[in-house]
């Protein structure tokens, strides 16, 4: 349509007489978007962090304390792009140092449909399964330096797996999303040997809305099931007598339900200057199967009927444009039984009468969306060795920085 109108030219305002304000061409957007997250930290503990344990829970995946002293945290390299008008692709590589060795981990590598239609979205590849809120966030977007205890105890700090997700957003006023994921079962807690088919599956449902322009809420429900084969995890710390470590490995059926809720408030819906977020998640896991101690001679084994659960509640308040403060309360509980209590004990799966508990406070200075300095203190009562933990974390984001989910 040609934009020409025979309208009187009003002195200095020839408003409709020409199309000089029309744009000729769309600018080329840089494709793909690249970003680098740098994360440096300092940590101080009363006890040896290598000895860290959560009695009654198997520590798998990346469930561990940040390294003592100065260290490099989670460096993330990420590239994402709209591949064409149908797909969006994303790759995230995390580089971290474990015991003096630099490890490169492929965290995300997936393609996702863009507007499949009728509210459907499909994603395939490696991604963070939709088991809960914290799992959907990259480590740099966490509100504390570490994952909640329930994630440490049940999800190896973060659950990553390969597979396919199909989700559907209902055409309703209230936000209603349901989804299903079929996964290889290659990461903790499915762990161990990758299944040739679907080793792990997730069902999820999210519901959310605004109370008013200033406050909104979302609740989520998830169910995770895995057929686990030889899932190795950290044991009781003390290893074998001659330094020969016995590694507990679980095989069996694992079922976890999750419940999460978040409430957010900001004046007139402007989170830039003041913002309050109240968030909680609860998980409960039932496991039935067998635990063996790999490396034991003769091989020690026990049946296990596991019941592990935990929750956290946290409140984050942005009280000034560049300042945030937060508190978090963590608690876990377990009741694992089996045919051989001694083996369970050695595997670190007896609760020793302890409900691991942790209190954390943090404050952070956020000069811009791209940098943050955080100070965190935690009182950790996870085992009989209670301790104080201090953390300093400096995170910066270089390059493109995508939008954050609610």
């Amino acid at each position, binding site marked *: 349509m040609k934009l020409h109108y025979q309208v009187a030219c009003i002195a200095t305002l020839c408003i409709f007489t020409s199309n000089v304000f029309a744009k000729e061409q769309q600018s080329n957007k840089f494709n793909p978007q690249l970003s680098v997250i740098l994360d440096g930290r300092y940590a101080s503990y009363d006890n040896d962090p290598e000895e860290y344990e959560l009695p009654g829970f198997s520590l798998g995946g990346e469930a561990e304390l940040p390294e003592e002293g100065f260290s490099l945290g989670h460096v993330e390299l990420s590239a994402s792009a709209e591949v064409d008008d149908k797909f969006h692709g994303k790759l995230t590589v995390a580089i971290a140092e474990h015991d003096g060795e630099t490890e490169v981990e492929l965290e995300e590598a997936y393609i996702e449909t863009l507007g499949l239609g009728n509210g459907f979205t499909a994603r395939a590849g490696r991604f963070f399964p939709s088991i809960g809120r914290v799992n959907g966030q990259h480590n740099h977007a966490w509100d504390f330096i570490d994952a909640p205890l329930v994630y440490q105890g049940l999800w190896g700090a973060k659950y990553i797996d390969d597979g396919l997700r199909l989700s559907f*957003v209902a055409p309703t006023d209230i936000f209603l999303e349901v989804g299903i994921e079929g996964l290889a079962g290659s990461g903790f807690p499915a762990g161990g040997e990758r299944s040739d088919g679907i080793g792990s599956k997730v069902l999820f449902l999210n519901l959310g809305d605004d109370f008013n322009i200033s406050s909104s809420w979302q609740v989520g429900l998830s169910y995770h099931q895995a057929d686990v084969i030889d899932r190795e995890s950290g044991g009781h710390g003390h290893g074998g007598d001659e330094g020969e470590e016995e590694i507990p490995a679980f095989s069996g059926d694992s079922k976890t339900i999750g419940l999460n809720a978040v409430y957010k408030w900001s004046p007139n819906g402007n989170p830039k200057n003041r913002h309050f977020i109240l968030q909680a998640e609860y998980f409960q896991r039932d496991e039935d199967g067998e635990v063996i101690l790999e490396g034991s001679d003769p091989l020690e084994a026990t049946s296990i009927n596991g019941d592990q659960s935990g929750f956290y509640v946290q409140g984050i308040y942005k009280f000034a444009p560049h300042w945030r403060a937060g508190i978090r309360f963590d608690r876990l509980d377990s009741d694992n039984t089996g045919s051989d209590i001694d083996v369970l004990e050695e595997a670190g799966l007896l609760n020793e009468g302890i409900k691991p508990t942790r209190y954390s406070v943090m404050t952070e200075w956020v000069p811009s969306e791209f940098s943050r300095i955080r100070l965190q203190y935690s009182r950790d009562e996870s085992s009989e060795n209670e301790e104080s933990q201090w953390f300093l974390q400096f995170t910066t984001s270089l390059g493109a920085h995508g939008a954050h989910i*609610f």
Partner: protein
Amino acid sequence: MNNIFKGSISKFLLATILVASNSSTFAAINVLACEPEWAALAKQLGGNHVVVNSATTALQDPHHIQARPRLISKARRADMLICSGAELEIGWLPILLKKSGNAKIQSQAIGHIMTADHVELLGKLEKVSRSMGDVHAAGNPHVHLDPRRMVLIADLVTQRLAQIDPDNSESYRNNNQSFKSDMTAMLERMKATVESLRNKRWVVHHNNWIYLNDWLGLQQIATLEPKPGVPPTTKHLAKLVSSLNENPVRAIAYGSYQPKKAANWLGKKTNTSVLALQYTVIDWEKPNAIVSWYESLITSLANALVP
């Protein structure tokens, strides 16, 4: 038996969806606007044939809202999306688009309108560095502050509405014609006032008025923010006090969603009048909201800037 069962299930589902989607007219075109000005434009052009929602209010900073669940469900049902673009909504719109699963509003669709992609932009930057603050390389996205650009966008929206809903294309074109004649009539009426604003000097909170400056010939001497998106610092304000005392301006202005503290402080220190301006349309559902808004904008500017 089986068919009866299936039939009643689908009827039930359809009924549920109809009740749940709660739209006043079933056939209406559902428009989601990112900002109130585009909601006003959609309402103006669409009339009774559209149901319009705005993702933000006039009291919200469109750079920094959250991709709330309610907005995802609105994006899910939209037939058309109208936003400013040029990275203004980069912190939340990509999430809405991805999570909506809605083909009609994706970037290549007819129902996807980023207004800044269709008009000449000011403030393009050759080189962008994060140290420059919250800048947009593609250009300044706040294009709605210039009626000349607004009418071009109105043409585009009219055209797209007609493509999406050909049955009512006549009505959309008529609405666009009357919108433009109302605009012309208003500008004709306000001609003297508009001209009186030429070359008047002012200071603004954030650099989101450059299209208004361009249109009215206002001289923006400084911004209260030291860099775009960076809140005013005492150091920067102190510098402004001395420069404004040397070279006075007519007024210090802040927009509806911006804090007034810095403007008031500087106003007191330099004995300059402080002006709260409607950065966008407030009551976008009212008829003729855009033209009335431009008129009140010109009027309040003239009251503050013209002696």
